[in-house]
């Protein structure tokens, strides 16, 4: 199956976000792919609020089964969360569990005015009642596969399908 061009999807996603943004809106990318997408959106939209990033490992619901993963990143929320509109940005939306973890983490920084979700690809397979407000593209991916966003040495983003 041919996969869509990730850079083009980022540009289209930025266009669809633009009308819905508040001057105080902050983007928060989820490590690692979500941060790459959020960087693209942040630049394209010219947002003043600095970009936030979350590593949701500490909030995952499978910690007791699989423990902590190596290569943890620090979460960074370089703005006041209280009363601010926030857009969570991720590369691929699947079960929705990562988004739940991200929302839990954001609330530990304060009470945001609202949280929306923007994803590059929605691959279906939700296990929680989570629905993105903005989607680059919807794809039907079978359960045994992983859809991943990768960044090459030149910094170009590309989607890749691998066996889980």
């Amino acid at each position: 199956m041919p996969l869509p061009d990730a850079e083009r999807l980022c540009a289209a996603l930025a266009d669809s976000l633009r009308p819905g943004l508040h001057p105080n809106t902050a983007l928060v990318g989820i490590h690692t792919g979500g941060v790459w997408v959020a960087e693209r959106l942040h630049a394209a939209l010219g947002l003043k609020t600095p970009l936030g990033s979350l590593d949701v490992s500490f909030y995952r619901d499978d910690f007791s089964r699989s423990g902590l993963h190596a290569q943890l990143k620090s979460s960074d929320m370089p703005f006041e969360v209280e009363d601010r509109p926030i857009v969570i940005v991720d590369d691929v939306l699947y079960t929705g569990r990562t988004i739940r973890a991200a929302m839990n983490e954001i609330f530990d920084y304060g009470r945001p005015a609202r949280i929306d979700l923007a994803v590059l690809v929605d691959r279906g397979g939700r296990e929680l009642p989570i629905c993105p407000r903005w989607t680059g593209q919807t794809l039907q991916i079978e359960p045994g596969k992983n859809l991943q966003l990768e960044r090459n040495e030149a910094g170009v983003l590309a989607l890749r399908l691998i066996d889980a």
Partner: protein
Amino acid sequence: MLNPQLNKDGALQHLLTIDGLPREILSAILDTATPFTEVAEREVKKLPLLRGKSVFNLFFENSTRTRTTFEIAAKRLSADVINLNIGTSSAAKGESLLDTVDNLCAMQADMFVVRHAVSGAPFLIAQHLAATGRDHIHVINAGDGRHAHPTQGLLDMYTIRHYKKDFTRLVVAIVGDVMHSRVARSQISALTTLGVPEVRVIGPKTLIPADVDRLGVSVFNDMRAGLKDVDVVMMLRLQSERMQGALLPSPQEFFKYYGLTADKLSYARPDAIVMHPGPMNRGVEIDSAVADGRHAVILPQVTFGIAVRMAVMSMLAGA
């Protein structure tokens, strides 16, 4: 022999000593600790990793700082923390220690943080848990006799890495009462495992174990010579409560030769950092001007200690 601290998958099951732990595990603990330092900046200083778990602080020997930082670490991970301060008066016998452990296991303990005056007590507990098939319960050594104090050694390594970045170019001096110090033993293992090329120990002959050079360190009895061009000065506390007989003429005499003063520190590199595990004896092993001076990173050590203990507890709970 199989390392009793590692499970069959090679993950950390207990933290009993730094001896024998591979560099990858030490580095993984330090790497994992980094994101935990950020939690202290948040509105809600809590993570859900140990939610529903019970951590028992089992202190057979007094301690304020270590017990408190373990308690804060466990609470920031959302664990329930139960502190048991068991006095030093009744020298705990093997049987009664394990009976205590069995009773606490019957109260659904998930983790023991153990400090004991007898070297090897946390090992005994870990062995007992393994022998009785309770692999879901984890043990952290918070200081046993003269043997080891691994989380102190790890937080010291975290502090060094924070300020100096690369271990492989450093000269590190450990100063003072090495003989009675479990901290020194953990520091030496950690420093050599992480690739520090030169570790020196400095102190009077009576307070340096005769066979310490077997650990790959060089020994100095003259402090100024020992501090020449070092990057890191790790002071030890003079452990008067552990001394039997006359090893020292007096604390004043010790300060004269081995107390860290600005003059002695001037032999170290200009950007050297000064560390101390606490509690400090000002005017005995360290001068106030140095303890409060610009080289000292003694209070950051305490703060980093919380993150390092959170990292260790999380890694054990996830093993």
